[in-house]
C-alpha cells in the first residue's frame, strides 16, 4: 500500500509533468483520493505557475541565470513539500490489514472504557461472574429479578377487573 511520504517526494516532478507516464498515473490516482496530498498538489501547481511567470520576468533582466534559479526554486519547493508530509496518517494505517485490526482494537478498547466509566465496572464485571454481586442480590435474587412485576403486583392481581374500569376521558371522547 502506498504511503503519502513516498508520493510527496515525486509531487513536484509530477506537478511539472516530469515523471514517466506510469509513475505520473500512480501519483495522479493517489492525489485524487488523498485529501492531504491533493491540497499539497494544488499548492504546488499554483507555486509552479507563479514560478514560471516570475522566471519569464527575471529572464528578461541582464546578469541572471534563469536555469540556475529554476533549479534552486525546484529544490526548495521539494524540500518544503517533504517537510509538510505527515509521517503517517490514519488513511495509511487503515490501508493495511494489521492497521485495520489495530484501529478496530483501539475502537473496541475505547468503547469498553467508556462503557465501564458510564455504568461502573461492577455493572460489567458482576454480570460476567468476575465480581461478586451485593449480598442482598444473592440472598433475594428472585425479588430483584421479578422486581418490575412485584412493583406492579397490585395492578396485575386485579388486571381483568381494572381493565374494565371506565375512565372519565373515555366517556368524554365517546360524547365528543
Amino acid at each position, binding site marked *: 500500500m502506498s504511503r503519502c511520504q513516498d508520493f510527496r517526494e515525486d509531487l513536484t516532478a509530477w506537478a511539472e509533468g516530469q515523471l514517466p507516464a506510469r509513475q505520473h498515473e500512480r501519483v495522479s490516482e493517489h492525489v485524487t483520493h488523498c485529501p492531504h496530498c491533493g491540497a499539497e498538489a494544488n499548492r504546488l501547481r499554483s507555486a509552479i505557475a507563479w514560478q514560471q511567470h516570475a522566471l519569464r520576468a527575471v529572464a528578461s533582466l541582464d546578469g541572471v541565470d534563469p536555469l540556475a534559479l529554476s533549479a534552486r526554486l525546484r529544490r526548495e519547493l521539494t524540500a518544503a513539500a517533504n517537510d509538510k508530509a505527515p509521517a503517517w496518517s490514519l488513511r495509511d494505517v487503515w490501508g493495511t490489514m494489521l492497521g485495520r485490526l489495530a484501529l478496530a482494537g483501539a475502537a473496541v478498547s475505547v468503547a469498553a472504557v467508556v462503557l465501564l466509566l458510564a455504568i461502573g465496572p461492577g455493572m460489567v464485571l458482576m454480570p460476567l461472574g468476575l465480581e461478586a454481586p451485593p449480598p442482598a442480590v444473592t440472598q433475594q435474587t428472585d425479588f430483584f429479578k421479578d422486581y418490575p412485576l412485584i412493583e406492579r*403486583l397490585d*395492578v396485575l392481581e386485579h388486571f381483568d377487573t381494572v381493565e374494565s374500569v371506565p375512565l372519565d376521558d373515555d366517556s368524554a371522547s365517546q360524547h365528543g
Partner: protein
Amino acid sequence: MQGGTAGLTLLVLATCFAGPVAAFPLLAQNWRELSPGERYETLQNYQQHERLPEDSRRAIEKRYERWQQMSPDERARIRQNYQRLQQLPPQERDRIQRKYEKWRQQEAPSQ
C-alpha cells in the same frame, strides 16, 4: 498431608476449569443460573430499589412477601397479566395505572 495437597490441587484445578463463576462458590444458586443479561437487569433493579425512599422500599418488600405466599397457579396468572401489560403501548399502560387508581378509590370505602 498428601490428602491435603491433593485436595488443594483439585480445588485449584476446579476453579481454573469451571470458569470465573466457580470463584464465588458461596453465591446463591439462583444468581449463578441467570444469564449475564438477566444478571445485569437484576442489578439494575437492585440499584433502583436502593434509590427509593424507605417507605416505598418497604411497600414493595411487603408486596414481595405477598407474592411469595401466593400459589403457583396465582403466580402464573399474574405473570401472564404482566406479559399482557408489557405488550401494551406506554400510553395504554398509563391508562391501566389510572384505571387502577380509580378502581382502588372506589373500592376503598367498602374495604
